[in-house]
């Protein structure tokens, strides 16, 4: 695949939930992730292939992979999650 149409992925990391257990870092096939100060961060996001193994194995639901689609507004960010609203209140 040429460099132009290579798929790009963004890593949404909820640092508040991450406990730094190292599972995602150890099982990433492309060594994208690293631990910094006991929390995960995407050190090499350009080599991510979007296999979502980190997202599937994360015991703390702290990491999420979103594909970046050109021309589309950026996906939901971790900062947009509102923890003040009780989810129990919104039974639809």
């Amino acid at each position, binding site marked *: 695949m040429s460099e132009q149409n290579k798929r790009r992925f963004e890593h949404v990391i909820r640092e508040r939930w991450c406990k730094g257990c*190292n*599972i995602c870092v150890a099982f990433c096939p492309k060594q994208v992730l690293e631990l910094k100060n006991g929390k995960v961060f995407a050190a090499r996001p350009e080599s991510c292939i979007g296999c979502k193994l980190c997202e599937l194995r994360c*015991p703390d*639901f702290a990491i999420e992979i979103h594909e970046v689609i050109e021309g589309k507004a950026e996906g939901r960010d971790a900062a947009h999650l509102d923890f003040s609203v009780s989810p129990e209140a919104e039974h639809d």
Partner: protein
Amino acid sequence: MSDSLKYFRQNRLPHIWCPGCGHGTITGAIIRAIAKLKLDKNRIVVVSGIGCSSRAPGYLDFDTLHTTHGRALAFATGIKLSRPDLKVIVMTGDGDATAIGGNHFIHAARRNIDITTIVMNNAIYGMTSGQYSPMTPVGMLGTTAPYGTVERPFDLAKMAIASGASYVARATSYHVQLLEEVIEKALLNKGFSVVEAVSQCPTYFGRKNKIGSAVDMLNMFKEHAVNVKAAAVMAPEKLEGKFLIGELHNQSAPEFTEEYQKLIEGVRRKFDNFQGGVRECAQNSD
């Protein structure tokens, strides 16, 4: 994950489990399977007993019930019988399901009641500081087995099959895709479905047995687990010390609540013409 976050009580997170605990991975797999099937969260009841694994329903935004030790299946049987239209999921641990609730487990399987049971097997009582459980492999160390346990463990899958469960599968927290797949099938199965989800306890099992971190424990699962399809063509001596994962049993059987409903309808029909007073009326109606 983002579309399945609505099934969580997000204000309760981060959860109480230790860093690297496999229970979070398994809970995530359950939620993704539910999200994939697009089940209504108001029509799901999650029941749990006592233990690390049984903390899970506290983080899930369904109708949840945290019950007494080992009795999760007993409470779930009551819920399912009174409201057969609801989907009942039991999240339980190895000690909860096989030691304290062992009898409830085999009898729920015998009745083939439509409950999906996910047994998170970390082979130890993690919450009370690492006593050995009926699922601890021979020779492994625990707080109550400082020189290694000599008791032979249960094979939960074989026990469930022998007791009459209609769907039995096993996966580990390393094999997440398989875990999600078998949970999805278990949720769709009409009857008693058991998924044994092998989980890692780095804090007690890993530390006491000097296995190492959560990553080392997951690598251990990777080495020791053999898919049941691959095992069918493998030599028996190669399977020594390994455990099988995948779909182990899938055979439909009469479901308890349906049979019970049939019985109720049958008896009602028998008494349809019964006006009251004369007992012979009911007996002669058929």
